């Protein structure tokens, strides 16, 4: 409708890795926008630079090893030249991240509650009681059973699917503008995948959060995304709306991906 709704605006993002073997271009000239309440799906094979893109948006890439160029704007705020202290205020509050493997994304030594509370304390001045209620509330919103008991548990006492939903709850408890979901369903079985997709759908509809969904699972992309970008070797080879891209792929690589999905789909059935 109008420009105010654009939450994330990335222009000309370039990422180079500097290693002993020399330089390697991992992300090349990416430009995309996400509006609030919309989901941009990025698909592509492993190692094509999807995860790097997420970390680049959060400015979490090691500055010695990675050289980043281009502009990343969160609403009106340019992220590329923020100080570490300013970024800390944005990470977790305005932009949240969901990682691929929930089993090792949580600190095994701390209860779920402690990890919720430290996140809430980092971004607000809530009391312990209020923070606790906030945590319970966001777990509840994700339809997780018995949130109060859940908070007392350690990450290793929960299943992977549970943890993934806990991670989603944790990432939305500060009501971020933007959610980066990096392969949120890859490590899960189909039942849990369904739960996670549902959870993301709730966020999309109710919170009006902009979501960047990175996945190589085309089914998930199909269910959630509004726009899709196909990534290969650090570049977008094709972008378009879900309907258009799935029904009428233009690029060879997109066709290849879709074919692969069809064959695995039929095999599953």
């Amino acid at each position, binding site marked *: 409708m109008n420009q105010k709704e654009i939450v994330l605006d990335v222009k000309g993002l370039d990422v180079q890795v500097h290693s002993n073997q020399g330089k390697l271009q991992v992300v090349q000239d990416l430009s995309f926008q996400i509006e609030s309440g919309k989901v941009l799906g990025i698909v592509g094979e492993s190692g094509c630079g999807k995860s790097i893109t997420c970390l680049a948006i959060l400015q979490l890439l090691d500055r010695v090893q990675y050289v980043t160029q281009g502009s990343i704007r969160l609403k009106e705020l340019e992220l590329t030249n923020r100080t570490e202290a300013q970024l800390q205020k944005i990470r977790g509050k305005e932009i*949240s991240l969901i990682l691929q493997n929930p089993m090792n994304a949580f600190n095994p030594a701390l209860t779920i509650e402690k990890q919720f509370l*430290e996140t809430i304390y980092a971004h607000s001045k809530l009391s312990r009681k209020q923070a606790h209620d906030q945590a319970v509330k966001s777990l509840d919103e994700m339809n997780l059973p018995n949130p109060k008991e859940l908070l007392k548990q350690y990450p290793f006492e929960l299943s992977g699917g549970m943890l993934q939903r806990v991670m989603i709850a944790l990432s939305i408890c500060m009501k971020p503008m933007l959610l980066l979901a990096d392969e949120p369903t890859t490590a899960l079985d189909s039942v849990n995948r369904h739960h996670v997709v549902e959870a993301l759908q709730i966020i999309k509809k109710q919170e009006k959060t902009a979501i960047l969904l990175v996945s190589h699972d085309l089914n998930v992309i199909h269910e959630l995304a509004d726009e899709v970008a196909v990534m290969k070797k650090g570049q977008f080879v094709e972008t378009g709306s879900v309907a258009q891209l799935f029904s009428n792929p233009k690029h060879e690589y997109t066709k290849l991906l879709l074919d692969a999905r069809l064959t695995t789909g039929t095999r599953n059935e």
Partner: protein
Amino acid sequence: MKLFVYVWKRLAMMVPVILGTTFVAFLLLRLTPVDPARAYLSVSNIIPTEETINLVRHQLGLDQPFWLQYVHWLWQLCHLNFGISFISKIPVSQELVVRLPVTATLAVLSLIIAILVSIPLGIASALHKNKFIDHCCRLLAFLGASLPQFLLAYLLIYFVSVKFDLFPLQGTETWQHFVLPSITLALGLIATYSRLLRNGLLESLEEPFVLYAKARGLGTVALMGRHVLRHAIRPVVTAAGMNLGKLFAGTVIVEQIFAMPGIGGYFLEAVYHRDYPVIQSFVLIMAIVFVLGNLIADVVQAYLDPRLTQQGTRKQVE
């Protein structure tokens, strides 16, 4: 709560270990090439004849069957009776009451110094990987591995005490007396711990949960303290637990040099004269300290990583 149960279980597990150690300590002394009765006589300046030997054997209970001797000894140990020294004819426990605190203070003090110094050092060298401070720590670690403790002690005495007259030389009267010996013992530990911590930190920084904690916008203090350091310090805890026993043994050397009346000197004297009750007690104390050190380390580990207690309770369920 789980931690509490875990501690109790570990304490219960200690009992057979200690019991086994007492048996080994007892058995080894029966395997010595020299008859304790003869050793007793020679220390007491009595000419060993058939008659006197038999008399002493009877006095020491050596004429009884092996198992009976062991049970008797164990029973005495339960009453904190460690036997009577061959040399001084004073009960070993009386000496230990005076000497053990000195050694324990020394060992614990060095451990505390080592940990307090190596944490900032390890953090600094991890943050400035392959920079000046990191190379300094590496050099320190190398020195620690190549410089014998007794040499270090004399170097410290010579340069710190004699040249600059900073700390008193020998004895245990004031806290200053403990400074140099503790530093001697601590220096090697600092080298080890700071390297362990550095490598642990560098590994932890790669952990996904640290990345996730960063992504949640945690402040530097919370991030480093609660997530990185807590994870990275675990090898140091294990090493420190194992080192407690080593430190007690290391005091044998350091106590000699700084003329401190701890159990080390007492033990050495006993070794020269084959004063078996003292040797036996020392071996036993070493074993207990060693087991205790490991126990403390395990409990701290369990606190740092609750997965360990979890395993314990799961086993119980099965």
